[in-house]
């Protein structure tokens, strides 16, 4: 049964995939942050969908819907089209290619933006850059559909890690 993006089920599936890849993430090291994901709908009047993801030691320990009352280090936000572009790329290629890494997508805020209040929190995006990239790369192995019922493209390459 596929999960839907964006939904709490999608991020819970990523959390479970991370748990299953414990060895891989423990090699990357301590990963301690809470960050938000904000997805703007296609219509101007649609409220954004928000999720808070908490990471502690080597695991994703909490996935919550909405950011109200959650202290986040930073928030990754973008339109559904921008998120979809990234997820389609990861799903098709097994991991993000050069144009779709989180750093590349957010660096100048062209497609995804990073919101933050505290620069120290913002820097956690970079302190844990590889763990965050590999977390999103896990979406290549998730069975999911978009809200309109369409699916990401069929995988053309085996599951892998970005840069390998």
């Amino acid at each position, binding site marked *: 049964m596929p999960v839907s993006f964006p939904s709490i089920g999608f991020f819970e599936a990523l959390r479970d995939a991370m748990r299953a890849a414990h060895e891989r993430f423990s090699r990357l*090291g301590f990963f301690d942050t809470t960050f938000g994901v904000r997805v703007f709908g296609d219509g101007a009047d649609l409220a954004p969908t928000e999720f808070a993801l908490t990471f502690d030691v080597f695991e994703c320990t909490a996935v919550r819907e909405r950011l109200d009352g959650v202290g986040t280090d930073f928030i990754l936000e973008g339109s559904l089209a921008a998120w979809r572009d990234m997820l389609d790329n990861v799903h098709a290629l097994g991991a993000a290619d050069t144009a779709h*890494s989180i750093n590349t997508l957010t660096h*100048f805020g062209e497609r995804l933006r990073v919101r933050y209040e*505290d620069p120290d929190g913002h820097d956690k995006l970079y*302190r844990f850059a*590889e763990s965050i990239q590999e977390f999103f790369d896990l979406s290549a192995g998730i069975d999911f559909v978009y809200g309109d019922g369409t699916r990401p493209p069929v995988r053309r390459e085996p599951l892998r890690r970005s840069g390998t």
Partner: protein
Amino acid sequence: MSYLSTIDFTEDREFVDRFQRAMCGDLDLGWMAVEREQVRCRPQNERRGLTFRDLVVGSYGFTEMPELIRRNRSFAPRGAAMPEGLPDLQADVNRKSEVWAYNVEGYYEEAMSRQWNATTDIPWRELADAQLPEEIGKAYAQLLTFLTEVEMIATDVPCKWMGRLNADFFEVKNFIATQAMDEARHAEIFRKRALSTGFGLMRASAHNEFNLKFLRDADSFAEASLALHLQAEGMVLTLFRFSEYISPTEADKKLFRLVMQDEARHVGYGMQHLKWVIDHFPERREAIHHHLDEAENFVFGAGYATEVLEPFIILAGKGLRKENIQQGVRITQAFQLKQSDEYFERLAKCGLPERRERSRLWKFVELNRQAIAA
């Protein structure tokens, strides 16, 4: 040998007698009778393991550490009994405020758990097959040459200070030991990548080296940390992120993500150190501004040196044709503004919001911003 023992141990009757009695089973055991604070530290979080933070108990902890360490002049680990006769090792840095940072013990643990290997964590075989167009390859090799030069000195600076810190600053000494390892790995990976592009190392940079000499020759650890951890590494962190953005292959992107992780941790220490100083010794604000005035002059010369600026323009524009250069200049300008914004943002967060108004670097960047907008 500049340090000679005042005792010739093989000729010292008392020492030799004691040794011989011990070897006959007549033990002294004076060390065992010393009154100690007995503790049994346990991990607060079993998944994380036993951390330095778990050891912050009683006299072994650092929360009650005074600003000026007068008592321990030796190598005695903090909390150990100190018998008469320990040598005075004349540590250069004995003020907590010169080195301490909020969460320094956490940065150490993070550093230890997030180590990686430049030899095995990068898919070198795939990179060996990656063919870069000549102008891109040369520009990338020049950027890697610049970064190798930077990282060699970034290794030397923490190494220079590590042995000069009072032994009571255990967590800081360990943290800067991890930094030295990180920077050595960065120098290693940039050299390896330069020598695997097919173009080799390109040209050293005089402007860059002026700044590196300034960092190396700082008069105090506090000055070195301000200029290295917060300013230079803060700027280099944005530079690594930009380098990831313009990297020609996935493996190069991975390389820059790995180095940026380490760099961001060093910047974190620098920020938390400056915050500590401003929170506890606000009267040092003026001295900090004076040091930043000079540091910003040097970093401007290094960061905008021909040997780094031009490769950026070529890599960002993806070539040497006129339209490539125009595009490269636009993207590089955006990077410079971002680099400056992030640097001043960090200083403001540390308690120096007025830095923007005082800084000639900020004024230059603002003029540049206005020129771009016009």
